[in-house]
Protein backbone atom coordinates (compact mmCIF):
# COMPACT_ATOMS: atom_id res chain seq x y z
CA UNK A 1 0.00 0.00 0.00
CA UNK A 2 1.93 2.98 -1.24
CA UNK A 3 -0.75 5.64 -1.34
CA UNK A 4 -2.52 7.25 1.63
CA UNK A 5 -5.30 8.76 -0.47
CA UNK A 6 -6.63 6.96 -3.51
CA UNK A 7 -9.42 8.58 -5.50
CA UNK A 8 -10.91 6.59 -8.36
CA UNK A 9 -13.36 7.89 -10.95
CA UNK A 10 -14.98 10.31 -8.52
CA UNK A 11 -18.17 12.01 -9.70
CA UNK A 12 -20.07 14.50 -7.62
CA UNK A 13 -23.36 16.25 -8.16
CA UNK A 14 -25.04 18.73 -5.80
CA UNK A 15 -28.61 17.76 -4.96
CA UNK A 16 -30.05 20.73 -6.84
CA UNK A 17 -28.16 19.86 -10.05
CA UNK A 18 -29.68 18.09 -13.05
CA UNK A 19 -28.67 14.48 -13.73
CA UNK A 20 -26.26 15.36 -16.55
CA UNK A 21 -24.57 18.23 -14.70
CA UNK A 22 -21.62 17.26 -12.54
CA UNK A 23 -19.52 19.41 -10.25
CA UNK A 24 -16.76 16.80 -10.30
CA UNK A 25 -16.29 14.58 -13.33
CA UNK A 26 -14.26 11.38 -13.33
CA UNK A 27 -11.46 12.52 -11.03
CA UNK A 28 -8.75 10.01 -10.21
CA UNK A 29 -5.48 10.61 -8.40
CA UNK A 30 -3.37 9.21 -5.60
CA UNK A 31 -1.35 10.87 -2.90
CA UNK A 32 1.67 9.21 -1.33
CA UNK A 33 2.23 9.37 2.46
CA UNK A 34 4.20 12.49 3.42
CA UNK A 35 3.54 14.20 0.12
CA UNK A 36 2.42 17.84 -0.19
CA UNK A 37 -0.05 18.25 -3.02
CA UNK A 38 -1.50 21.59 -4.07
CA UNK A 39 -4.87 21.69 -5.81
CA UNK A 40 -5.39 24.80 -7.90
CA UNK A 41 -8.30 25.95 -10.00
CA UNK A 42 -10.78 28.76 -10.53
CA UNK A 43 -13.48 29.72 -8.13
CA UNK A 44 -16.27 27.27 -8.79
CA UNK A 45 -13.98 24.71 -10.43
CA UNK A 46 -14.88 22.14 -7.76
CA UNK A 47 -11.72 22.18 -5.62
CA UNK A 48 -13.52 22.67 -2.32
CA UNK A 49 -16.16 20.14 -3.32
CA UNK A 50 -13.34 17.66 -3.92
CA UNK A 51 -11.89 18.34 -0.46
CA UNK A 52 -15.27 17.85 1.20
CA UNK A 53 -15.69 14.53 -0.60
CA UNK A 54 -12.42 13.25 0.81
CA UNK A 55 -13.63 13.19 4.42
CA UNK A 56 -17.24 12.41 3.72
CA UNK A 57 -18.69 15.88 4.30
CA UNK A 58 -20.23 15.35 0.90
CA UNK A 59 -21.10 11.93 -0.53
CA UNK A 60 -19.93 11.17 -4.08
CA UNK A 61 -22.40 10.22 -6.81
CA UNK A 62 -19.99 7.61 -8.13
CA UNK A 63 -16.42 6.43 -7.61
CA UNK A 64 -14.47 5.28 -4.59
CA UNK A 65 -12.26 7.10 -2.14
CA UNK A 66 -9.77 5.12 -0.10
CA UNK A 67 -8.03 6.79 2.82
CA UNK A 68 -5.23 4.94 4.58
CA UNK A 69 -6.55 1.59 3.36
CA UNK A 70 -10.16 2.25 4.39
CA UNK A 71 -12.81 2.72 1.73
CA UNK A 72 -14.95 5.74 2.59
CA UNK A 73 -18.48 4.68 3.49
CA UNK A 74 -21.06 5.48 6.11
CA UNK A 75 -19.44 3.01 8.52
CA UNK A 76 -15.91 4.30 8.11
CA UNK A 77 -16.59 8.02 7.83
CA UNK A 78 -15.97 8.86 11.50
CA UNK A 79 -12.76 6.80 11.51
CA UNK A 80 -11.58 8.59 8.41
CA UNK A 81 -12.41 11.99 9.87
CA UNK A 82 -10.03 11.31 12.76
CA UNK A 83 -7.32 10.70 10.15
CA UNK A 84 -7.98 13.88 8.20
CA UNK A 85 -7.63 17.33 9.69
CA UNK A 86 -9.26 20.12 7.74
CA UNK A 87 -8.60 23.83 7.97
CA UNK A 88 -11.09 26.10 6.22
CA UNK A 89 -10.98 29.53 4.67
CA UNK A 90 -12.67 31.77 7.21
CA UNK A 91 -10.69 31.92 10.47
CA UNK A 92 -13.74 32.99 12.46
CA UNK A 93 -16.23 30.47 11.18
CA UNK A 94 -14.26 27.43 12.31
CA UNK A 95 -13.37 28.62 15.77
CA UNK A 96 -15.69 26.56 17.96
CA UNK A 97 -14.19 27.03 21.42
CA UNK A 98 -14.75 30.07 23.58
CA UNK A 99 -11.01 30.29 24.25
CA UNK A 100 -7.89 29.21 22.36
CA UNK A 101 -7.29 26.15 24.56
CA UNK A 102 -10.96 25.12 24.30
CA UNK A 103 -10.83 25.27 20.54
CA UNK A 104 -7.66 23.19 20.35
CA UNK A 105 -9.32 20.61 22.59
CA UNK A 106 -12.53 20.40 20.54
CA UNK A 107 -11.49 17.47 18.30
CA UNK A 108 -10.08 15.65 21.31
CA UNK A 109 -13.32 16.09 23.24
CA UNK A 110 -15.17 14.65 20.26
CA UNK A 111 -12.93 11.60 20.33
CA UNK A 112 -13.58 11.18 24.05
CA UNK A 113 -9.92 11.42 25.00
CA UNK A 114 -9.34 11.54 28.79
CA UNK A 115 -8.74 15.00 30.25
CA UNK A 116 -5.16 14.40 31.48
CA UNK A 117 -4.11 13.38 27.98
CA UNK A 118 -5.99 16.37 26.52
CA UNK A 119 -4.19 18.85 28.77
CA UNK A 120 -0.82 17.47 27.66
CA UNK A 121 -1.66 17.43 23.97
CA UNK A 122 -3.23 20.90 23.99
CA UNK A 123 -0.22 22.43 25.73
CA UNK A 124 2.21 20.72 23.34
CA UNK A 125 0.20 21.71 20.26
CA UNK A 126 -0.03 25.35 21.30
CA UNK A 127 3.71 25.37 21.93
CA UNK A 128 4.35 24.00 18.46
CA UNK A 129 2.43 26.83 16.77
CA UNK A 130 3.92 29.36 19.20
CA UNK A 131 0.56 30.34 20.71
CA UNK A 132 1.17 29.04 24.26
CA UNK A 133 0.86 32.54 25.74
CA UNK A 134 -2.61 32.90 24.27
CA UNK A 135 -4.20 29.75 25.74
CA UNK A 136 -6.89 31.56 27.72
CA UNK A 137 -7.53 34.29 25.14
CA UNK A 138 -10.86 34.72 23.41
CA UNK A 139 -10.91 34.48 19.59
CA UNK A 140 -12.12 38.08 19.27
CA UNK A 141 -8.75 39.23 20.53
CA UNK A 142 -6.68 37.30 17.95
CA UNK A 143 -5.61 38.21 14.43
CA UNK A 144 -6.69 36.11 11.45
CA UNK A 145 -3.25 34.51 11.21
CA UNK A 146 -3.29 33.67 14.90
CA UNK A 147 -6.74 32.10 14.59
CA UNK A 148 -5.55 29.92 11.71
CA UNK A 149 -2.53 28.88 13.77
CA UNK A 150 -4.92 27.91 16.56
CA UNK A 151 -6.87 25.86 14.00
CA UNK A 152 -3.59 24.17 13.04
CA UNK A 153 -2.84 23.54 16.73
CA UNK A 154 -6.23 21.82 16.90
CA UNK A 155 -5.07 19.58 14.07
CA UNK A 156 -1.70 18.89 15.72
CA UNK A 157 -3.45 17.90 18.96
CA UNK A 158 -5.78 15.51 17.11
CA UNK A 159 -2.76 13.95 15.34
CA UNK A 160 -4.27 13.31 11.91
CA UNK A 161 -2.23 11.70 9.14
CA UNK A 162 -3.55 14.02 6.49
CA UNK A 163 -4.05 17.77 6.61
CA UNK A 164 -6.38 19.41 4.10
CA UNK A 165 -6.13 23.18 3.78
CA UNK A 166 -9.18 24.56 2.02
CA UNK A 167 -7.90 28.00 1.03
CA UNK A 168 -6.73 28.33 4.61
CA UNK A 169 -4.55 31.36 3.89
CA UNK A 170 -6.78 33.21 1.42
CA UNK A 171 -8.38 35.55 3.97
CA UNK A 172 -5.14 36.47 5.70
CA UNK A 173 -2.85 39.43 5.26
CA UNK A 174 0.61 38.67 3.80
CA UNK A 175 2.19 38.38 7.22
CA UNK A 176 -0.48 36.02 8.55
CA UNK A 177 -0.10 33.96 5.39
CA UNK A 178 3.64 33.64 5.90
CA UNK A 179 3.15 32.64 9.55
CA UNK A 180 0.63 29.96 8.65
CA UNK A 181 2.74 28.56 5.82
CA UNK A 182 5.80 28.49 8.09
CA UNK A 183 3.76 26.59 10.69
CA UNK A 184 2.63 24.05 8.09
CA UNK A 185 6.20 23.52 6.86
CA UNK A 186 7.31 23.01 10.43
CA UNK A 187 4.43 20.57 11.10
CA UNK A 188 5.46 18.60 8.05
CA UNK A 189 9.06 18.50 9.23
CA UNK A 190 7.98 17.28 12.68
CA UNK A 191 5.89 14.34 11.48
CA UNK A 192 5.21 12.40 8.31
CA UNK A 193 2.15 14.51 7.61
CA UNK A 194 0.49 14.41 4.21
CA UNK A 195 -0.72 17.84 3.11
CA UNK A 196 -3.37 18.67 0.53
CA UNK A 197 -3.69 22.38 0.00
CA UNK A 198 -6.36 24.01 -2.07
CA UNK A 199 -5.10 27.43 -2.97
CA UNK A 200 -4.90 30.47 -5.20
CA UNK A 201 -1.64 31.51 -3.61
CA UNK A 202 1.42 30.96 -5.75
CA UNK A 203 3.74 30.71 -2.73
CA UNK A 204 1.59 28.02 -1.21
CA UNK A 205 1.46 26.09 -4.50
CA UNK A 206 5.24 26.45 -4.82
CA UNK A 207 5.72 24.76 -1.44
CA UNK A 208 4.05 21.60 -2.74
CA UNK A 209 5.72 18.52 -4.24
CA UNK A 210 3.02 18.24 -6.86
CA UNK A 211 0.30 20.47 -8.27
CA UNK A 212 -3.09 19.29 -9.53
CA UNK A 213 -4.98 21.68 -11.78
CA UNK A 214 -8.76 21.37 -11.70
CA UNK A 215 -10.94 23.14 -14.20
CA UNK A 216 -14.67 22.83 -14.60
CA UNK A 217 -14.81 19.74 -12.40
CA UNK A 218 -12.13 17.87 -14.29
CA UNK A 219 -8.52 17.13 -13.49
CA UNK A 220 -6.75 19.00 -16.28
CA UNK A 221 -3.12 18.76 -15.45
CA UNK A 222 -0.72 17.49 -12.88
CA UNK A 223 2.96 18.09 -12.39
CA UNK A 224 5.66 19.55 -10.19
CA UNK A 225 5.30 23.25 -9.32
CA UNK A 226 8.19 24.03 -11.71
CA UNK A 227 6.41 22.30 -14.60
CA UNK A 228 3.10 24.03 -13.88
CA UNK A 229 4.63 27.47 -13.37
CA UNK A 230 6.20 27.38 -16.82
CA UNK A 231 2.76 28.22 -18.16
CA UNK A 232 3.29 31.87 -17.16
CA UNK A 233 0.24 33.99 -17.93
CA UNK A 234 -1.85 30.87 -18.31
CA UNK A 235 -1.50 30.40 -14.56
CA UNK A 236 -4.22 32.98 -14.14
CA UNK A 237 -6.53 30.89 -16.29
CA UNK A 238 -5.76 27.95 -14.03
CA UNK A 239 -6.91 29.98 -11.07
CA UNK A 240 -3.59 30.89 -9.52
CA UNK A 241 -3.14 34.47 -8.51
CA UNK A 242 -0.07 36.08 -9.96
CA UNK A 243 1.40 38.47 -7.44
CA UNK A 244 -0.44 41.79 -7.61
CA UNK A 245 2.59 43.76 -8.83
CA UNK A 246 3.11 41.32 -11.69
CA UNK A 247 -0.51 41.59 -12.77
CA UNK A 248 -0.34 45.37 -12.74
CA UNK A 249 2.87 45.24 -14.76
CA UNK A 250 1.28 42.98 -17.35
CA UNK A 251 -1.71 45.29 -17.60
CA UNK A 252 0.51 48.36 -18.07
CA UNK A 253 2.50 46.53 -20.70
CA UNK A 254 -0.67 45.81 -22.64
CA UNK A 255 -1.30 49.57 -22.61
CA UNK A 256 2.01 49.99 -24.41
CA UNK A 257 4.03 51.23 -21.47
CA UNK A 258 7.67 50.48 -20.81
CA UNK A 259 7.86 48.41 -17.65
CA UNK A 260 10.93 47.09 -15.84
CA UNK A 261 11.63 43.46 -16.70
CA UNK A 262 12.79 42.59 -13.19
CA UNK A 263 10.41 41.29 -10.54
CA UNK A 264 9.07 44.05 -8.34
CA UNK A 265 7.53 43.82 -4.90
CA UNK A 266 4.39 45.85 -4.26
CA UNK A 267 6.45 48.56 -2.59
CA UNK A 268 8.99 48.53 -5.42
CA UNK A 269 6.13 48.84 -7.89
CA UNK A 270 4.69 51.81 -6.01
CA UNK A 271 8.08 53.54 -5.94
CA UNK A 272 8.53 52.96 -9.65
CA UNK A 273 5.05 54.41 -10.35
CA UNK A 274 5.74 57.50 -8.21
CA UNK A 275 8.84 58.28 -10.21
CA UNK A 276 7.40 57.39 -13.59
CA UNK A 277 6.66 60.99 -14.61
CA UNK A 278 9.70 62.68 -13.13
CA UNK A 279 12.12 60.22 -14.71
CA UNK A 280 10.83 60.97 -18.16
Amino acid at each position, binding site marked *: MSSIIDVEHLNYRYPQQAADELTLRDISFTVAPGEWVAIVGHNGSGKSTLA*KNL*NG*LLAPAAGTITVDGQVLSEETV*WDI*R*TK*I*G*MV*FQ*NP*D*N*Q*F*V*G*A*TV*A*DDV*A*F*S*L*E*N*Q*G*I*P*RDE*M*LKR*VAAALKQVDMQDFATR*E*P*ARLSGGQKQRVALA*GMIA*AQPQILILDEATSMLDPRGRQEVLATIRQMKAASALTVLSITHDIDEAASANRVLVINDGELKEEGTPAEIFQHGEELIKMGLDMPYAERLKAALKRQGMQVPATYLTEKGMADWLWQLRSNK
Partner: protein
Amino acid sequence: MMNKLIFGRYVPGNSVVHRMDPRAKLLLSFYFIGIIFIANSWLTYLVLFAFTLAAIYLSGVKWSFFINGVKPLIWLILFTVVLQVLFSAGGGHVYFQWGIITISQSGLINGVYIFCRFVLIIFMSTLLTLTTPPLELSDAIEYILMPLKVVHFPVYEVALMLSIALRFVPTLMDETEKIMNAQRARGVDFGEGNIFQQMRAVVPLLIPLFVSSFNRAEDLATAMEARGYQGGEGRSKFRILKWQMRDTWATISFAVLTVALILLRA
Protein backbone atom coordinates in the same frame (compact mmCIF):
# COMPACT_ATOMS: atom_id res chain seq x y z
CA MET B 1 -21.59 50.60 23.68
CA MET B 2 -23.30 47.19 23.41
CA ASN B 3 -19.95 45.57 23.96
CA LYS B 4 -19.69 47.24 27.35
CA LEU B 5 -23.19 46.12 28.24
CA ILE B 6 -22.41 42.45 27.94
CA PHE B 7 -18.71 41.90 28.09
CA GLY B 8 -17.52 44.89 30.04
CA ARG B 9 -19.33 43.28 32.92
CA TYR B 10 -16.77 40.68 33.90
CA VAL B 11 -14.00 42.30 35.91
CA PRO B 12 -10.97 40.00 35.94
CA GLY B 13 -9.55 39.41 39.37
CA ASN B 14 -8.17 36.81 41.69
CA SER B 15 -10.24 37.27 44.82
CA VAL B 16 -11.91 34.52 46.83
CA VAL B 17 -15.19 35.37 45.11
CA HIS B 18 -13.58 35.18 41.66
CA ARG B 19 -12.10 31.79 42.43
CA MET B 20 -15.33 30.30 43.71
CA ASP B 21 -16.99 27.51 41.77
CA PRO B 22 -19.46 29.15 39.32
CA ARG B 23 -22.08 26.57 40.31
CA ALA B 24 -21.84 27.69 43.92
CA LYS B 25 -22.02 31.35 42.89
CA LEU B 26 -25.00 30.85 40.61
CA LEU B 27 -27.01 28.71 43.03
CA LEU B 28 -26.22 30.89 46.05
CA SER B 29 -27.21 34.03 44.14
CA PHE B 30 -30.59 32.50 43.37
CA TYR B 31 -30.89 31.32 46.95
CA PHE B 32 -30.13 34.86 48.16
CA ILE B 33 -33.03 36.24 46.15
CA GLY B 34 -35.24 33.70 47.91
CA ILE B 35 -34.15 34.48 51.46
CA ILE B 36 -34.48 38.25 50.99
CA PHE B 37 -38.20 37.70 51.39
CA ILE B 38 -37.68 36.34 54.90
CA ALA B 39 -36.56 39.80 56.00
CA ASN B 40 -39.35 41.99 57.37
CA SER B 41 -37.70 44.36 59.81
CA TRP B 42 -35.01 47.02 59.89
CA LEU B 43 -32.67 44.68 61.73
CA THR B 44 -33.04 41.87 59.17
CA TYR B 45 -32.40 44.26 56.28
CA LEU B 46 -29.37 45.58 58.10
CA VAL B 47 -28.04 42.02 58.39
CA LEU B 48 -28.66 41.42 54.67
CA PHE B 49 -26.86 44.65 53.74
CA ALA B 50 -23.94 43.81 55.99
CA PHE B 51 -23.69 40.37 54.38
CA THR B 52 -23.88 41.74 50.83
CA LEU B 53 -21.35 44.49 51.48
CA ALA B 54 -18.99 41.98 53.07
CA ALA B 55 -19.25 39.80 49.94
CA ILE B 56 -18.58 42.83 47.72
CA TYR B 57 -15.63 43.78 49.89
CA LEU B 58 -14.21 40.24 49.53
CA SER B 59 -14.50 40.42 45.73
CA GLY B 60 -12.24 43.49 45.62
CA VAL B 61 -14.39 44.99 42.84
CA LYS B 62 -14.82 48.78 43.00
CA TRP B 63 -18.03 50.06 44.61
CA SER B 64 -18.78 52.25 41.62
CA PHE B 65 -19.55 49.15 39.48
CA PHE B 66 -22.41 48.29 41.84
CA ILE B 67 -23.79 51.81 41.94
CA ASN B 68 -23.67 51.75 38.12
CA GLY B 69 -25.57 48.46 38.25
CA VAL B 70 -28.44 50.14 40.06
CA LYS B 71 -28.52 53.26 37.84
CA PRO B 72 -30.21 51.82 34.71
CA LEU B 73 -32.98 50.37 36.87
CA ILE B 74 -33.49 53.35 39.16
CA TRP B 75 -36.68 54.56 37.43
CA LEU B 76 -38.24 51.12 37.58
CA ILE B 77 -37.38 50.89 41.26
CA LEU B 78 -38.70 54.35 42.08
CA PHE B 79 -41.90 53.63 40.14
CA THR B 80 -42.50 50.47 42.17
CA VAL B 81 -41.69 52.27 45.40
CA VAL B 82 -44.06 55.15 44.58
CA LEU B 83 -46.87 52.72 43.74
CA GLN B 84 -46.28 50.95 47.02
CA VAL B 85 -46.27 54.21 48.99
CA LEU B 86 -49.37 55.69 47.32
CA PHE B 87 -51.64 52.71 47.04
CA SER B 88 -50.98 50.44 50.01
CA ALA B 89 -53.88 50.70 52.41
CA GLY B 90 -51.85 49.39 55.31
CA GLY B 91 -52.14 50.19 58.98
CA GLY B 92 -50.34 52.79 61.05
CA HIS B 93 -50.71 56.52 60.99
CA VAL B 94 -52.31 57.95 57.83
CA TYR B 95 -50.50 61.10 56.71
CA PHE B 96 -52.49 61.91 53.61
CA GLN B 97 -55.58 60.63 51.89
CA TRP B 98 -57.22 61.70 48.64
CA GLY B 99 -59.52 59.34 46.74
CA ILE B 100 -57.74 56.01 46.35
CA ILE B 101 -54.38 57.52 47.22
CA THR B 102 -53.33 56.85 50.77
CA ILE B 103 -49.94 57.63 52.27
CA SER B 104 -49.64 55.69 55.48
CA GLN B 105 -46.82 54.84 57.84
CA SER B 106 -46.78 51.17 56.86
CA GLY B 107 -46.93 52.16 53.18
CA LEU B 108 -43.84 54.32 53.58
CA ILE B 109 -41.97 51.59 55.44
CA ASN B 110 -42.94 49.00 52.83
CA GLY B 111 -41.70 51.37 50.14
CA VAL B 112 -38.31 51.59 51.79
CA TYR B 113 -38.22 47.79 52.21
CA ILE B 114 -38.94 47.28 48.51
CA PHE B 115 -36.21 49.72 47.64
CA CYS B 116 -33.81 47.75 49.85
CA ARG B 117 -34.84 44.46 48.24
CA PHE B 118 -34.20 45.79 44.75
CA VAL B 119 -30.81 47.15 45.70
CA LEU B 120 -29.80 43.93 47.45
CA ILE B 121 -30.85 41.75 44.50
CA ILE B 122 -29.06 44.00 42.03
CA PHE B 123 -25.90 44.11 44.16
CA MET B 124 -25.80 40.33 44.50
CA SER B 125 -26.49 39.55 40.83
CA THR B 126 -24.01 42.24 39.78
CA LEU B 127 -21.46 40.56 42.02
CA LEU B 128 -22.17 37.27 40.24
CA THR B 129 -21.71 38.65 36.73
CA LEU B 130 -18.75 40.85 37.66
CA THR B 131 -16.76 37.99 39.15
CA THR B 132 -17.75 35.12 36.82
CA PRO B 133 -16.73 34.92 33.14
CA PRO B 134 -19.73 34.14 30.87
CA LEU B 135 -18.15 30.84 29.86
CA GLU B 136 -17.99 29.63 33.47
CA LEU B 137 -21.60 30.63 33.92
CA SER B 138 -22.57 28.52 30.93
CA ASP B 139 -20.64 25.58 32.43
CA ALA B 140 -22.52 26.09 35.67
CA ILE B 141 -25.85 26.15 33.84
CA GLU B 142 -24.92 22.92 32.07
CA TYR B 143 -24.23 21.27 35.40
CA ILE B 144 -27.41 22.54 36.98
CA LEU B 145 -29.50 21.34 34.01
CA MET B 146 -27.92 17.86 34.19
CA PRO B 147 -30.87 16.25 36.03
CA LEU B 148 -33.03 17.07 32.99
CA LYS B 149 -31.13 14.40 31.06
CA VAL B 150 -33.54 11.94 32.65
CA VAL B 151 -36.32 13.38 30.51
CA HIS B 152 -34.01 13.36 27.43
CA PHE B 153 -33.38 17.08 27.50
CA PRO B 154 -30.26 17.65 25.32
CA VAL B 155 -28.15 19.21 28.08
CA TYR B 156 -24.75 18.90 26.34
CA GLU B 157 -26.09 20.35 23.13
CA VAL B 158 -27.74 23.27 24.89
CA ALA B 159 -24.52 23.97 26.80
CA LEU B 160 -22.48 23.88 23.59
CA MET B 161 -25.00 26.17 21.89
CA LEU B 162 -24.73 28.57 24.79
CA SER B 163 -20.94 28.63 24.68
CA ILE B 164 -20.92 29.06 20.88
CA ALA B 165 -23.42 31.89 21.19
CA LEU B 166 -21.20 33.60 23.76
CA ARG B 167 -18.15 33.04 21.59
CA PHE B 168 -19.82 34.65 18.56
CA VAL B 169 -21.16 37.76 20.29
CA PRO B 170 -17.96 39.81 19.78
CA THR B 171 -17.63 38.47 16.22
CA LEU B 172 -21.14 39.64 15.37
CA MET B 173 -20.48 42.97 17.08
CA ASP B 174 -17.49 43.52 14.80
CA GLU B 175 -19.59 42.54 11.85
CA THR B 176 -22.34 44.99 12.82
CA GLU B 177 -19.76 47.74 13.13
CA LYS B 178 -18.43 46.91 9.64
CA ILE B 179 -21.87 46.88 8.06
CA MET B 180 -22.74 50.16 9.79
CA ASN B 181 -19.59 51.75 8.42
CA ALA B 182 -20.37 50.41 4.96
CA GLN B 183 -23.87 51.89 5.18
CA ARG B 184 -22.53 55.18 6.54
CA ALA B 185 -20.18 55.37 3.59
CA ARG B 186 -23.29 55.19 1.41
CA GLY B 187 -24.97 58.01 3.29
CA VAL B 188 -27.12 56.23 5.87
CA ASP B 189 -27.41 58.28 9.02
CA PHE B 190 -27.76 56.23 12.20
CA GLY B 191 -28.93 58.04 15.29
CA GLU B 192 -30.56 60.93 13.42
CA GLY B 193 -34.21 61.75 12.90
CA ASN B 194 -37.17 60.61 14.93
CA ILE B 195 -37.60 57.15 16.39
CA PHE B 196 -39.25 55.73 13.26
CA GLN B 197 -36.49 57.00 10.99
CA GLN B 198 -33.92 55.49 13.34
CA MET B 199 -35.75 52.16 13.30
CA ARG B 200 -35.89 52.28 9.50
CA ALA B 201 -32.12 52.77 9.39
CA VAL B 202 -31.66 49.52 11.32
CA VAL B 203 -33.38 47.34 8.70
CA PRO B 204 -30.58 47.51 6.10
CA LEU B 205 -28.29 46.61 8.99
CA LEU B 206 -30.18 43.56 10.15
CA ILE B 207 -30.65 41.88 6.79
CA PRO B 208 -26.94 41.55 5.90
CA LEU B 209 -26.25 40.58 9.50
CA PHE B 210 -28.78 37.76 9.32
CA VAL B 211 -27.49 36.54 5.98
CA SER B 212 -23.92 36.45 7.19
CA SER B 213 -24.91 34.77 10.45
CA PHE B 214 -26.55 31.95 8.52
CA ASN B 215 -23.45 31.57 6.37
CA ARG B 216 -21.29 31.49 9.46
CA ALA B 217 -23.54 28.88 11.04
CA GLU B 218 -23.23 26.66 8.00
CA ASP B 219 -19.44 27.03 7.89
CA LEU B 220 -19.21 26.32 11.59
CA ALA B 221 -21.36 23.21 11.29
CA THR B 222 -19.13 21.92 8.48
CA ALA B 223 -15.99 22.62 10.51
CA MET B 224 -17.45 20.91 13.57
CA GLU B 225 -18.42 17.86 11.58
CA ALA B 226 -14.99 17.71 9.94
CA ARG B 227 -13.50 17.71 13.42
CA GLY B 228 -15.55 14.69 14.40
CA TYR B 229 -18.47 16.23 16.29
CA GLN B 230 -21.27 13.66 16.52
CA GLY B 231 -23.40 15.12 19.30
CA GLY B 232 -22.88 15.30 23.02
CA GLU B 233 -22.77 11.60 23.89
CA GLY B 234 -19.33 10.08 24.36
CA ARG B 235 -17.51 13.40 24.49
CA SER B 236 -14.95 14.05 27.16
CA LYS B 237 -14.69 17.45 28.77
CA PHE B 238 -11.73 19.82 28.62
CA ARG B 239 -13.06 22.36 31.10
CA ILE B 240 -14.07 20.97 34.46
CA LEU B 241 -15.49 22.59 37.55
CA LYS B 242 -13.99 21.93 40.96
CA TRP B 243 -15.93 22.32 44.19
CA GLN B 244 -13.48 23.52 46.80
CA MET B 245 -13.35 24.27 50.50
CA ARG B 246 -14.18 27.94 49.88
CA ASP B 247 -17.42 26.94 48.17
CA THR B 248 -18.42 24.86 51.16
CA TRP B 249 -17.63 27.80 53.45
CA ALA B 250 -19.70 30.13 51.29
CA THR B 251 -22.62 27.71 51.48
CA ILE B 252 -22.27 27.49 55.26
CA SER B 253 -22.25 31.28 55.58
CA PHE B 254 -25.49 31.46 53.59
CA ALA B 255 -27.01 28.85 55.91
CA VAL B 256 -25.96 30.91 58.92
CA LEU B 257 -27.46 34.00 57.29
CA THR B 258 -30.76 32.17 56.78
CA VAL B 259 -30.90 31.09 60.41
CA ALA B 260 -30.05 34.62 61.58
CA LEU B 261 -32.81 36.09 59.42
CA ILE B 262 -35.40 33.66 60.73
CA LEU B 263 -34.41 34.38 64.35
CA LEU B 264 -34.33 38.18 63.91
CA ARG B 265 -37.51 38.41 61.90
CA ALA B 266 -40.18 40.51 63.55
